[in-house]
């Protein structure tokens, strides 16, 4: 690992100051992604600003019935929080489907939001990767691209965003609180991550030195669910995942929220499918039409063409489950 300076600020002002003034500074949370990337030489910060001493490690009720989650809450603690389990099951399920027990004990909410892709070519420093080394090309395009994205891709990058948690947050209309030396701002989680376009190295809307301090959830939908499909039963990244919430009244869908993981460079909010579902019948044919419409724009490669039908089937299965269990109010 390339040597770096280490600071552990006691308050957020000191953390923001360090990030703004220390050259090549990077925030460190639980370390499960950044330490790995530093060891591989992919990330080479000159200064690491350890933010785990900051007081952002609580989950609090909001007056409107929502929830405020500190950016330093560990993934395991958030998954186990009784309010999350009761009101936002999709979020608890997504967290529990990610990584391993040990990693969930370390990983933070803020770090999870900012984790980088697991694309094989991003990790392999002998390969061409526009995200790691802008302008070098993309070996995934005609390489082993089974895990790569099919929506929102460009000719320069087809890497997926690896998070499960973020897919649930996208379906829940979460808002990310961001602090910089200039003040605090709020970003819908669906606007936090960027599509690659010609600049896949720019992954988020954050300015240098800005720190995620919290995530806020609006009041919960009636029922929600996370379904993940992967190559082994546990401890693997998603090939396809679906976060969904559905409310049905007299057989008609009154609310539909749908987000997809494993198929795009960012947590993919399926707004076209939601538009088609809302006001329509809560039946399998309608679920399938909505899923197919969302996937119509898919741009597949040799290795990942299967994801179109897999995503369609997973969306239909998840909506079917929700429509049959408890969502009818």
């Amino acid at each position, binding site marked *: 690992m390339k040597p770096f300076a280490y600071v552990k600020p006691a308050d957020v002002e000191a953390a923001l100051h360090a990030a703004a003034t220390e050259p090549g500074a990077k925030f460190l949370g639980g370390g499960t992604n950044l330490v*790995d990337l530093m060891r591989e030489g992919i990330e080479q910060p000159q200064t690491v600003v350890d933010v785990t001493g900051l007081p952002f490690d609580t989950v609090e009720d909001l007056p409107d019935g929502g929830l405020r989650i500190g950016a330093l809450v560990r993934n395991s603690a958030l998954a186990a929080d009784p309010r999350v389990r009761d009101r936002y099951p999709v979020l608890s399920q997504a967290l529990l489907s990610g990584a391993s027990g040990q990693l969930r004990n370390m990983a933070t909410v803020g770090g999870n939001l900012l984790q980088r892709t697991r694309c094989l070519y991003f990790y392999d420093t002998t390969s061409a990767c526009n995200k790691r080394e802008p302008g070098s090309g993309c070996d995934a395009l005609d390489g082993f691209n089974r895990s790569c994205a099919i929506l929102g891709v460009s000719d320069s990058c087809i890497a997926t965003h690896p998070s499960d948690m973020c897919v649930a947050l996208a379906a829940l209309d979460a808002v990310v609180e961001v602090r910089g030396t200039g003040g605090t701002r709020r970003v819908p989680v669906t606007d936090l991550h960027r599509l690659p376009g010609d600049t896949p190295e720019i992954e988020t809307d954050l300015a240098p030195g800005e720190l995620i301090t919290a995530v806020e959830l609006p009041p919960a939908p009636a029922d929600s669910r996370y379904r993940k499909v992967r190559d082994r039963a546990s*401890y693997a990244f998603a090939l396809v995942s679906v976060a969904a919430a559905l409310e049905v009244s007299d057989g008609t869908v009154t609310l539909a929220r749908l987000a997809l993981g494993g198929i795009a460079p960012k947590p993919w909010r399926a707004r076209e499918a939601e538009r088609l579902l809302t006001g329509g019948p809560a039946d399998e044919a309608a679920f399938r039409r909505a899923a197919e419409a969302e996937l119509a724009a898919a741009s597949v490669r040799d290795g990942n063409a299967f994801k179109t039908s897999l995503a369609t089937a997973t969306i239909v299965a998840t909506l079917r489950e929700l429509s049959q269990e408890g969502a009818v109010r």
Partner: protein
Amino acid sequence: MKVNGDVAALDVEPWVSLLDALRERLGVTGPKKGCDQGACGACTVLADGVRINSCLALAVQYDGQEITTIEGVDHPLQEAFVRNDGLQCGYCTSGQICSAIGMLAEHAAGMPSAAGGSGALTEDEVRERMSGNLCRCGAYNGIVDAIMEVAR
């Protein structure tokens, strides 16, 4: 930090992992370096009782904490692993046992899992909750039996 009950005063560079600090600086070689990227779990230790991957932990982040490695463990799981053939080569075993101790504590505290819930610990639950510890010898059946025996 405290390691297995003893105070260990360490002066390490910030880029030294907890695993390297334990193994190379303190001679505590129970935690193993398998993948060094958080994929295998052989480096699992307990930090203030919580299981973590010590290879992805910077030692400086655990300043002042109490680290427990297999050397500091005295638990019925150890004999249960032997009785149930929960190992073949043994390389993953120290991580398996530290992970299982942390896992049983999580389950007792009501931590849910992707296998369904926080009710009675079933074999499916054990397999899901222990999925962060790989065993290339494939001693999984024995590992699950050992953990189930102690959990009962």
